[in-house]
């Protein structure tokens, strides 16, 4: 066990090392051995998985242990930044999920990307993402968290822009990066504020600079030193950073644009791991949050959950629907945090990761069978690939909280929210809509007439990954005991079954039974993309104005100077008329004037 504890950094650096090997291989142009690339990647992730499972057991029992180790990185007077690792139960759980899902998706990617070009570049980016996410989970202080936060954003951008020949992919990648940058700036502002507090007011800190283990100490000191409004304002910067990263309202736009990535990437990054970074941040700074901030998290989480589920109802693009679903479920996780129960949030996150990854992998299969991800283009898949339909149903049941893992987590969430009627209502509304849209998609895609051009895919790695993912969706449900079957539980199940039936009828009649105004709102995604475009155009105007000032005012200044100089020199050059006699007269006249002046001065001197 000591071996694992002492070598935690290996989990982080092994993917980086493999990444460098693949880069050098690609540049030196050795034969591009695809199997070896995928194999090396999977080995590094497998090692990480073994490590994280061993460490998870270690820190969990018999009583919580924390492993912490760091070295000084940057030291300037009072600013002393450390880098290292921090392993407690939270990070151990996140690490296990990351490694497991990452491993399965790498195996799936080998099959998915087998026939596409630039195979090694894909795996380079995947390894880099692994490295960055591990660094983020294992950060012991806020500064290292920020470093890897940005690196994860970079990895996500590189993977989204992977198919760089298409024009819409390129635009989407740009938008994703810039929106993420906005969140990063907010987070950096919050961290700098904290650095200021730490350096100015707290001279002796028990641990290193801005460490997570210090946060209780921070909280006590800061509450007494600053106004509560200032404190809340500073912490809301952290919240903005977390909300942007986890695609909450109104920042969920980037997740929708991120769906232009290859499907395994969507499964890995944008449903299971990176978007959980926001939740991870909130869990880490939880000791600092005051009650008002928890209320803000609660309300924003609920708003996101309801609105995103509402938009997802009418989407016809499978990946878009799943993206909105991810936002919505993350909103429910934030609600759990807002209700001050972190274990519920973590369990919900674990189960949701597996479920969403399963659904995305199924989408990958669907897109390879039918070359499209719009529901109007696909039908009758059940008759072609029966197992795919089963997997989708399992995922759908889990997502809607009716059976398997999702049932456990949904029931825990409802129990936590028991006392608050309005919150309960909104959560149940969200679960109704979730069930509705996921089953509507099922009925639209898998039922109906079979199309002739579809052929089943026979890729071993893809099927293996799918099957393993299904096992991980089914199992956790039986791990946690259901506490009791009370009224709330039965109500939830009843709502779910109603939703399934309405989905069936809706897909049969081919329309959704809500008022047309709401339908229009939902289909246009609440006009939020238009809002983003408008903001973009507004800024374009500002840039244009500044450019005009630069071109005409400052350059104009230079041009005016040039013109004045030319004008004066034109006038003076008229004196040179090429006629020597004129020059002679100039000189004689000047001598005459000088003589007169000298005479005048001589006579003045004589007189006095």
């Amino acid at each position, binding site marked *: 066990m000591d071996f694992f504890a002492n070598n935690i950094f290996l989990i982080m650096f092994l993917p980086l090392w493999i990444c460098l090997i693949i880069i050098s291989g690609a540049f030196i142009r050795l034969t591009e051995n695809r199997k070896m690339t995928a194999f090396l990647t999977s080995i590094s992730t497998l090692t990480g998985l073994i490590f994280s499972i061993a460490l998870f057991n270690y820190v969990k029992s018999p009583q919580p242990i924390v492993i912490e180790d760091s070295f000084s990185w940057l030291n300037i007077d009072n600013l002393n930044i450390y880098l290292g690792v921090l392993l407690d139960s939270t990070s151990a759980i996140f690490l296990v999920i990351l490694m497991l899902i990452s491993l399965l998706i790498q195996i799936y990617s080998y099959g998915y990307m087998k026939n596409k070009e630039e195979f090694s570049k894909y795996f380079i980016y995947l390894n880099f993402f692994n490295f960055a996410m591990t660094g983020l989970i294992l950060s012991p202080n806020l500064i290292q968290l920020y470093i890897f936060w940005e690196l994860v954003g970079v990895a996500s951008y590189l993977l989204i822009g992977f198919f760089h020949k298409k024009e819409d992919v390129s635009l989407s990648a740009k938008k994703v990066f810039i929106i993420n940058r906005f969140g990063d700036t907010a987070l950096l502002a919050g961290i700098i504020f904290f650095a200021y507090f730490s350096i100015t007011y707290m001279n002796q800190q028990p641990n290193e600079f801005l460490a997570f283990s210090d946060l209780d100490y921070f909280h006590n000191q800061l509450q007494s030193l600053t106004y509560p409004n200032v404190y809340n304002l500073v912490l809301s910067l952290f919240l903005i950073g977390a909300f942007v990263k986890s695609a909450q309202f109104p920042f969920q736009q980037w997740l929708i644009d991120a769906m232009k990535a290859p499907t395994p990437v969507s499964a890995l990054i944008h449903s299971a791991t990176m978007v959980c970074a926001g939740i991870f941040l909130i869990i880490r700074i939880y000791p600092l949050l005051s009650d008002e901030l928890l209320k803000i998290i609660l309300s924003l989480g609920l708003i996101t959950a309801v609105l995103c589920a509402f938009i997802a109802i009418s989407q016809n693009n499978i990946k878009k629907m799943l993206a909105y679903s991810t936002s919505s479920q993350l909103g429910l996780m934030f609600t759990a945090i807002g209700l001050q129960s972190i274990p519920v949030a973590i369990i919900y996150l674990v189960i949701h990761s597996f479920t969403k990854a399963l659904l995305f992998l199924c989408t990958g299969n669907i897109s390879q069978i039918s070359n499209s991800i719009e529901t109007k283009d696909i039908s009758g898949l059940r008759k072609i690939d029966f197992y795919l339909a089963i997997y989708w149903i399992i995922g759908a049941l889990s997502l809607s909280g009716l059976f398997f893992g999702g049932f456990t987590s949904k029931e825990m969430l409802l129990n936590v929210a028991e006392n608050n009627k309005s919150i309960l209502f909104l959560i149940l509304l969200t679960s109704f809509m979730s069930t509705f849209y996921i089953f509507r998609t099922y009925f639209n895609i898998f039922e109906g007439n079979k199309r002739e051009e579809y052929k089943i895919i026979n890729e071993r790695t893809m099927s293996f990954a799918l099957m393993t993912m299904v096992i991980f969706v089914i199992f956790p449900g039986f791990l946690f005991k259901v506490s009791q079957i009370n009224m709330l539980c039965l109500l939830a199940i009843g709502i779910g079954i109603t939703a399934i039936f309405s989905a069936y009828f809706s897909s049969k009649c081919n329309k959704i039974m809500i008022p047309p105004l709401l339908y229009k709102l939902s289909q246009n995604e609440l006009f939020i993309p238009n809002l983003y475009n408008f903001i973009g155009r507004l800024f374009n105007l500002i840039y244009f104005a500044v450019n005009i000032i630069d071109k005409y005012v400052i350059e104009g200044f230079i041009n005016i100077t040039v013109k004045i100089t030319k004008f004066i020199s034109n006038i003076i*050059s008229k004196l*040179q*008329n*090429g*006629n*020597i*006699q*004129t020059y*002679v*007269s100039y000189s*004689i006249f000047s001598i005459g004037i000088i003589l007169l002046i000298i005479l005048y001065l001589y006579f003045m001197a004589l007189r006095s």
Partner: protein
Amino acid sequence: MFEITLYHYLVLSLILFAIGFIGIIISKNIIKVLICIEIVMSAINLNFIAFTAYKNYLFLSGMIFALFITAISALQTAIGLVLIYQIYKNKEKITSEEIEELKG
């Protein structure tokens, strides 16, 4: 009759100088300019000789300088004529209004 003092000579040389100078500035033909330069030179000569004669006629430097000026003005006229001839050969005109290579 009144006596001819130094000042009469100086006024004479001033008048000659002025005539020559105005001639230099005004003349259109370059040969006229040369002639007027001669007039200016002789005015200067007169000035020197007048001073020597009336002030200190043992101070020979003035006389010698006048001889120098005469000689050098002759040289100068010769060289000037050669230059004018070259200009005439190149351009066919020797009026100062039309020679303006140095303009601008």
